[in-house]
């Protein structure tokens, strides 16, 4: 998931991490939200955390994938965000 580092890839990677964290939360609690710190920690684990641009990258998905993005707050997925999250998960399962 973090292997691709072409232009714009970082933004997509960090967004995908947020979508996957939301999938995990959904499976655990039934809520389509991604905990801010959990997203950050997973980005660090996957070596794709960009502290200077992390919030800005996620904000670019605001209104499309995410209902709202605020530093330190849980990120709630929109309808298209849920679909995108399912696609990211399906891609992971398929080994992409």
């Amino acid at each position: 998931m973090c292997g691709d580092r072409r232009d714009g890839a970082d933004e997509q990677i960090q967004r995908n991490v947020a979508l996957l964290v939301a999938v995990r939360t959904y499976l655990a609690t039934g809520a389509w939200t991604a905990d801010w710190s959990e997203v950050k920690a997973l980005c660090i684990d996957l070596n794709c955390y960009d502290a200077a641009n992390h919030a800005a990258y996620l904000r670019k998905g605001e209104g499309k994938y995410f209902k709202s993005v605020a530093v330190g707050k849980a990120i709630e997925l929109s309808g298209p965000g849920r679909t995108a999250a399912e696609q990211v998960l399906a891609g992971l399962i398929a080994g992409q």
Partner: protein
Amino acid sequence: MPSSDELEDFYRRLTNLRAQVTQQGAAELAGDAAVVQAVVTLAKEWLRLSQRLRAAGIVDLSTLALCDGHMGELLVGRGDSRRADTHYRRHLNAVDGAFTGAVIIPVVKHEADPRQVMTRDLRAALDPHLTAPEKAYAEEALKCVAEACNRAGIVLLWAAAVTRFHGAVERLGFPVFSRALANTATKRAYPFTAVRDRNPVASRPELQRVPDFTILVAGMELWNYDLQAFNELARLLETRNNAAHPGMASPRPLDVQHFTDKLIERVFAFIPA
């Protein structure tokens, strides 16, 4: 404990300041009071952050001591003003070198720990429903949950719920509550039989002597919840009692989450505050 976002903000200012110091030569820096003041402010701010981090016990103490030492050097003065740029750069570089790996990342890892995530989720779920006195108990409960003390968390969450019941009874008035007790005592089937021989209640101390179970039974008349809702509340009380007494009950995080969800549904979102 400072959040990782707060630490990242501090780190951004530190790197900006270091870049500014690097750009300016010693002579220019000596005459730039704003930069000197910014360095002092940053150093003071670090020492405050360091105290809070030390109390939390997340970051290695040797790292904090190292950063404290360098930031302290920035506070006490630069000595030879001709070498001010070197002095600032050396100490800022030393902190910069350790900061991300040894300070920010341990804090991020701590924040992303499943227990911390669950605690934040529970707080977000509870907050909109709680009054200030209830919140005091809930906050203590969440501190317990964050430290994996789930039994203590359950007991304190129930205390928040009882605060709601007591407050609601006081708002209805003690005569109304006493009447509900008397009406309930006339019924012949369980659980109403548990309310027999109760004296009327006329004050808060007397209400505090009434068992929680009795309040739950009388609550069917006071707040119009049915027997199924009562049974759920009675099970929550049983969970609380199991958590408060020695035994084999060992609630897991998911048990606490379920307990909280049910408390919100049956008490905080249902019984008027």
